[in-house]
């Protein structure tokens, strides 16, 4: 039991930066950026390849510029070349498939066998069952702390306002294109770092390991919002973090109880995301006839 909880927490923390990344791109900038899947694999590929070559720490660090580059390409396609954001993400993603294969040395997977990872190095410093968990938690915690500080800085406020009212932002002599660029680069960095951590943690990376990561990330984001609400930026950040952990607990629950075949979990995830995004919209459309109904009820009473 303890092992199940630990595993759920580990995966929750490992994937939490993806939910935080989507919080920034989808919630703050209001852009459905689908670069996530490919960007996640790129982070993992860079990190595992470097670890296999004996540089696990450098691998983690290199995931940062790799992720930034993904975000930059997607942002440039949108702002400079007028490609709709969803298509820009898909285009970037498609191109990344070849890039990822190239990074992995034209193989579809790489494994770490005897080579050190940041986790094995950390275990030497702090031994014990919870060593991995501590390191895995440290990454999203640092990112979340940075984000909640950053969102109130001049740059952070400008990025938030860009997603909220771009007309106002331009009127305040801020270039919205460069805000989208900055936001998507930050978002790419978070996704790639998550991929890098997951890759070294699982000692393997596969060209298809990113499939569905964006939808799972959105599910985490929405679950967190359902629990904590969407009022403030800090709550949003905490929600993304929490949602990521909740998702992995649900995953573990399904996995061990076999309530739903594990193979069907992606279908379940897709369902959760579709329903949770649809509900507010459907509710909004139903608002019109309601007051009349209420009045009738009032009269009856």
């Amino acid at each position, binding site marked *: 039991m303890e092992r199940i909880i630990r595993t759920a927490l580990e995966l929750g923390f490992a994937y939490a930066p993806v939910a935080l990344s989507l919080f920034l791109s989808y919630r703050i900038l209001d852009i459905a950026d689908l670069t996530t899947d490919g960007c996640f694999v790129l982070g993992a590929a860079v990190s595992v390849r470097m670890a296999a070559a004996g540089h696990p720490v450098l691998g983690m660090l290199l995931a940062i510029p790799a992720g930034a580059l993904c975000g930059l390409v997607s942002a440039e396609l949108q702002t400079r070349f007028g490609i709709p954001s969803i298509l820009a993400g898909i285009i970037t993603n498609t191109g990344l498939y070849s890039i990822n294969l190239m990074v992995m040395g034209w193989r579809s997977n790489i494994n770490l066998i005897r080579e050190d990872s940041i986790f094995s190095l950390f275990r030497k410093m702090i031994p014990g069952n919870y060593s991995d968990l501590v390191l895995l938690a440290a990454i999203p915690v640092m990112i979340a702390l940075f984000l909640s500080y950053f969102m109130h800085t*001049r740059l952070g406020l400008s990025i938030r306002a860009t997603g909220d009212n771009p007309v106002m932002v331009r009127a*305040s*002599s801020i270039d919205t294109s460069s805000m989208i660029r900055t936001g998507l680069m930050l978002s790419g960095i978070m996704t790639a770092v998550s991929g890098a951590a997951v890759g070294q943690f699982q000692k393997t990376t596969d060209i298809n390991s990113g499939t569905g990561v964006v939808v799972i990330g959105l599910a985490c984001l929405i679950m967190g919002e359902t629990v904590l609400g969407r009022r403030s930026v800090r709550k949003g950040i905490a929600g993304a973090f929490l949602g990521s952990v909740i998702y992995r607990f649900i995953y573990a629950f399904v996995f061990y109880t076999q309530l739903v075949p594990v193979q069907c979990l992606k279908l379940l995830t897709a369902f959760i995301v579709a329903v949770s995004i649809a509900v507010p919209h459907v509710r909004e459309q139903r608002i019109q006839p309601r007051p009349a109904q209420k009045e009738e009820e009032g009269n009856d009473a």
Partner: protein
Amino acid sequence: MLEIINISKTFLPGTVNERKALDNVSFRMESGEFITIIGSNGAGKSTLLSAIAGAFPTDSGKVILDGEDISSMPEYKRSRSIGRLFQDPLSGTAPGLTIEENMALVYLQGKKTGNFFSRIGKEEREMFRERLRPLDLGLEDRLEQPVGLLSGGQRQALTLLLATLYPPKLLMLDEHTAALDPGSAERIMTLTKDIVRENRISCLMVTHNMRQALDAGSRTLIMNAGKIVADISGDERAGMDVGKLTDLFRNAAGSEYANDRMILSS
């Protein structure tokens, strides 16, 4: 101070919907001047303001602000010296950000010192309260609330404050009170006049309201079919009332006539 030289703009050129919105418009505006602009729908008033703000490239002509040719400067750079308010009271503020964050955004952006990572502190928060107090809307006690919760009039007042937090060289008002209820409209207009006078901001105001066009400012332009057809100031304007202006408007606009809204709202 502001010089507009032969500006032209045709929308959708070469199509059946081709429309000449600005036709060789030229005028000069002195520093500190307050000009009101009237004209029927489609006369080119808003297009003129958009051309000055740089919302789209003009086909020909120059915009010169304080001796600097800004014709090819992008909109976001021009907005450093040009403030603008629109008819839609929701357009000038970010609804998801709090009052304080909206003010912080504009304040930090315009501040000479500081960098991308600067934040506001206690002092600035107090300064925001001081600036909000004269609006007399109680906003100084609601700094933490999202702007989306405010009424149209409150948001337009906040927009006016944001646009003049650092007094711009030129303030352009595009029917900025037209979408508000009469009470709020009057309050915003009074605020506008006070702020413009105190900071000696040059101001261009488009209005549909003949009364407003005469009450505010010291000079009135009448536009029709993309041209400035009358330029009234000095004694001529001093002796003018709404009736005379309406007559003048009818004559200046040729066979065109003032639309109902202009006559009714005068």
